[in-house]
């Protein structure tokens, strides 16, 4: 196969050419009017020899052009990949050969008959009268051959080499090699073809007609010259006056005759034209040559500017006239009908075979690539899988080649995007699987939570409720913290605040979270519809924000804390009841111990001390009872305050006066404002607060220290301030944070631990807070503390 490429191309190309190559010499013989058998044989021999030489050279050239392709084919048939360099050279050859080789080939036809004509000039100068136009005619004839050969050979070669080029292009494409080779557009090819189709026959017809005119004129001239000469000879022979003048006169011919040269060289002319001719140089020589060669024959002189016929005339009977006559005849060419018919038939024969062959091969070289493009496009359209689509071979470097290249790149992109889509799809499925697993995990976690979880979208519609949430919803539709927002009036008792106020829809946790609030551990009270018992919910809620930070929804977590609350309440009630029950025994203890100490004057000191210890113990129990009751009241939210206008100054002084164990400390009340200091407060509770602060100040101050109670009024803020200032041990910085916490004792396990439950400051804070005031402190360890609280002015 590999070896056969050159052979196949050569055989087909030169085989097709041979048919025409055989016809052309026939045209040539006709063109130059070579009629004698031996002359024709000679010409054909020359043509044949030249043809063999030329064809051998062309085949050699073609083989050298195609060798890289052959080597490439051989390499691709063996298992090894052709080298990139070889592939490039093969591609260049496959694309360039159909362009380069036809040019050389057609040029060989352009030049082919020049040596033939030249040899005719030499060989047949005597016998074949060649005009001065023979060179031009040969060139035109060659050009017509060129015009005919170029499209034929191009069409042939591109048809033959196109598929090979296609194969090479596919291989190069796989290896990302750029394709070399000269581009020749379809447009240029079609224009060249049509030019050739017009030029070749037209030029051939033209040169043929022109030449046949010349031959016809010459033949006519020769014939008439012969007739003239016969007549002249006869006249001369039969006349007494054997002079040229007499003879020509006697002829009385209407011809533009005539110049006569005599053997002695005299030239006799009978007309202006003849005289002009006689004056031309070289006539004498040509006449002499004509006379010497063939006295009885008419010779046509192709070198003269005008058609001339010579005829030697033998010496007459009078012996006075051996000479030649040159006849100048005005040109009036007769038409050679037979020659024209031959020309037409010949031309028709050649053109009818040549043009369709050219067109056919050209069409084939275009249709092949188009067909492969169409096939691939159909594959793309029909196939669901872009991966299976093949690539289009590039037959020629032209518009179709570019189209094919474009489609190939389109397929590349299709495949790349199909690959991307596949990868994307795989990624997506994996992500979805992960997301589904996460969602399942999350659902499992959520559904096994004790807390009810409710998620809603931006409009407040529930989007997710876990199992505990559904139980809460079943318990009471009003639990649906968000349902209440979207379906007001769905019945049931709405959630209540712990103090009994109903929730307004805007107060519900999800609604507030949708407004951007974060709610931590707020309590709601609901009523269980079946048992009519209260259900305590502790809810937290927060907005859900999207990536841009806008609120996309909200989530609320609600826990049923009824048991905790009830237990807590039970505990508080227990404390309360227990504390109350302690009051009576304390009263008995205190009452009798006091009574005994007072009434019995005979008591020993020892007995009196015992009674005093009993009284102090009872007093301590009493204080603990009071603390416990205060705490339980605060927790049960049952602190009953009766605010009324109170003179702060008077209250402070009363409190200070009522202090026990103040003998070791000095307590002074200072007022920084001379005006009235009437606050709105519960007098007893305020006294309790101040008492707590003072007892702390005393407890943590060294004996003999002064404790100041400073009263001031800020009328702009509408409040009065009470500060208790001591110079005691102070509170360590790290302990200051929890100072108002219940049961918090800053001095536990220190030398300053003077006992107590850690209730006083807590109660002080609770009581001040409930009266609309603030309480705070400043303290430095070792330097003392200032505790301050405000109360609203009355």
């Amino acid at each position: 196969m590999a070896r056969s490429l050159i052979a196949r191309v050569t055989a087909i190309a030169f085989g097709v050419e041979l048919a025409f190559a055989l016809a052309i010499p026939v045209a040539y013989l006709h063109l130059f009017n070579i009629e004698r058998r031996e002359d024709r044989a000679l010409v054909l021999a020359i043509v044949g020899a030249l043809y063999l030489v030329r064809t051998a050279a062309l085949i050699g050239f073609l083989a050298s052009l195609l060798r890289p392709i052959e080597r490439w084919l051989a390499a691709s048939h063996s298992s090894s990949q052709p080298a990139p360099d070889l592939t490039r050279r093969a591609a260049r050859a496959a694309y360039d050969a159909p362009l380069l080789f036809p040019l050389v080939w057609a040029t060989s036809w352009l030049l082919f008959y020049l040596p033939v004509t030249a040899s005719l000039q030499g060989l047949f100068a005597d016998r074949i009268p060649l005009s001065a136009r023979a060179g031009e005619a040969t060139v035109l004839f060659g050009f017509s051959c060129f015009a005919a050969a170029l499209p034929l050979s191009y069409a042939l070669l591109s048809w033959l080499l196109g598929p090979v080029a296609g194969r090479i292009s596919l291989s190069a494409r796989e290896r990302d090699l750029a394709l070399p080779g000269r581009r020749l557009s379809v447009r240029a090819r079609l224009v060249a073809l049509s030019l050739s189709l017009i030029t070749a026959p037209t030029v051939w017809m033209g040169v043929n007609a022109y030449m046949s005119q010349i031959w016809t004129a010459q033949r006519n001239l020769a014939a008439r010259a012969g007739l003239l000469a016969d007549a002249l000879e006869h006249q001369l022979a039969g006349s007494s006056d054997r002079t040229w003048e007499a003879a020509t006169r006697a002829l009385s011919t209407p011809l533009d005759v005539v110049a006569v040269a005599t053997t002695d060289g005299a030239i006799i002319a009978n007309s202006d034209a003849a005289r002009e001719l006689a004056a031309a140089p070289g006539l004498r020589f040509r006449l002499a040559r004509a006379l010497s060669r063939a006295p009885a024959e008419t010779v046509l002189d192709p070198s003269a500017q005008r058609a001339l016929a010579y005829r030697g005339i033998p010496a007459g009977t009078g012996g006075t006239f051996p000479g030649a006559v040159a006849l100048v005849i005005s040109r009036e060419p007769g038409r050679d009908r037979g020659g024209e018919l031959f020309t037409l038939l010949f031309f028709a024969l050649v053109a009818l075979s040549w043009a369709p062959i050219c067109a056919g091969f050209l069409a084939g070289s275009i249709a092949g690539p188009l067909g492969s493009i169409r096939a691939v496009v159909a594959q793309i359209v029909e196939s669901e899988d872009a991966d299976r689509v093949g690539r289009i071979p590039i037959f020629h470097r032209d518009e179709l080649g570019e189209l094919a290249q474009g489609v190939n790149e389109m397929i590349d992109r299709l495949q790349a995007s199909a690959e991307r889509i596949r990868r994307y799809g795989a990624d997506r499925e994996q992500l979805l699987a992960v997301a589904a697993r996460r969602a399942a995990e999350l659902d499992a976690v959520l559904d096994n939570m004790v807390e009810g979880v409710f998620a809603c979208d931006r409009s407040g519609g529930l989007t997710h409720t876990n199992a505990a949430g559904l139980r809460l919803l079943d318990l009471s539709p009003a639990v649906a913290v968000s349902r209440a927002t979207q379906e007001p009036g769905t019945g049931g008792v709405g959630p209540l605040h712990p103090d009994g106020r109903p929730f307004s829809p805007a107060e519900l946790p999800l609604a507030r979270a949708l407004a951007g609030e974060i709610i931590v551990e707020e309590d709601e009270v609901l009523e269980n519809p079946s048992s009519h018992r209260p259900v305590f919910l502790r809810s937290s809620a927060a907005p859900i924000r999207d990536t841009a930070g806008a609120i996309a929804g909200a989530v609320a977590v609600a826990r049923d804390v009824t048991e905790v609350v009830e237990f807590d309440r039970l505990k508080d009630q227990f404390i309360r009841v227990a504390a109350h029950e302690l009051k009576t025994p304390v009263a008995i203890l205190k009452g009798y111990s006091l009574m005994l100490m007072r009434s019995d004057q005979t008591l020993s000191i020892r007995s009196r001390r015992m009674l005093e210890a009993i009284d102090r113990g009872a007093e301590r129990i009493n204080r603990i009872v009071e603390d416990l009751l205060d705490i339980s009241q605060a927790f049960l939210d049952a602190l009953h305050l009766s605010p009324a206008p109170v003179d702060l100054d008077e209250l402070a002084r009363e409190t200070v006066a009522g202090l026990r164990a103040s003998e070791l400390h000095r307590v002074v009340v200072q007022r920084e404002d001379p005006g009235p200091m009437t606050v709105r407060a519960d007098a007893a509770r305020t006294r309790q607060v101040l008492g707590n602060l003072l007892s702390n100040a005393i407890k943590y101050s060294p004996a003999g220290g002064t404790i100041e109670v400073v009263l001031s009024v800020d009328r702009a803020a509408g409040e009065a301030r009470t500060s208790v200032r001591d110079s005691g041990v102070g509170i360590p910085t790290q302990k200051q944070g929890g100072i108002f916490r219940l049961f918090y004792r800053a001095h536990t396990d220190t030398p300053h631990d003077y006992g107590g439950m850690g209730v006083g400051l807590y109660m002080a804070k609770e009581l001040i807070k409930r009266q609309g005031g603030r309480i705070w402190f400043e303290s430095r360890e070792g330097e003392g503390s200032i505790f301050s609280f405000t109360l609203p002015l009355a």
Partner: protein
Amino acid sequence: MEKASLMVLVVEDDPDLAALEADLLEERGHRVEVAFNGREALAAVERASPDLILLDMKMPVMSGREFADEYRRRQRSPAPIVVVTAADDAQRRAAEVGASGWIAKPFDPDALVDRVTRLLPSAGRS
């Protein structure tokens, strides 16, 4: 101690506390009747017609409040009542039963006596 001797009815379910109250008052020269619940108190009122009643609120059989209502219903000119209670809202409770005053448990013995003396109507001196 130039104080008039009054008849005080102590209504208190705790016998020790009742005894304490009685001792304190008797020490000051008052006469004391003790009842351990509201029903007994109603009987004692008939028997002793007290000048002042010290009334505990939480008692078995008949509570202080029930007693107060019943007592007022029966008596045309009832004696003043002083509520002795451990409740936090002693004042409110006292107002509820129409008492003339209240003493919170545990009480200061002197304060009890002082309160009783001050609350006693002028009738006490007659």
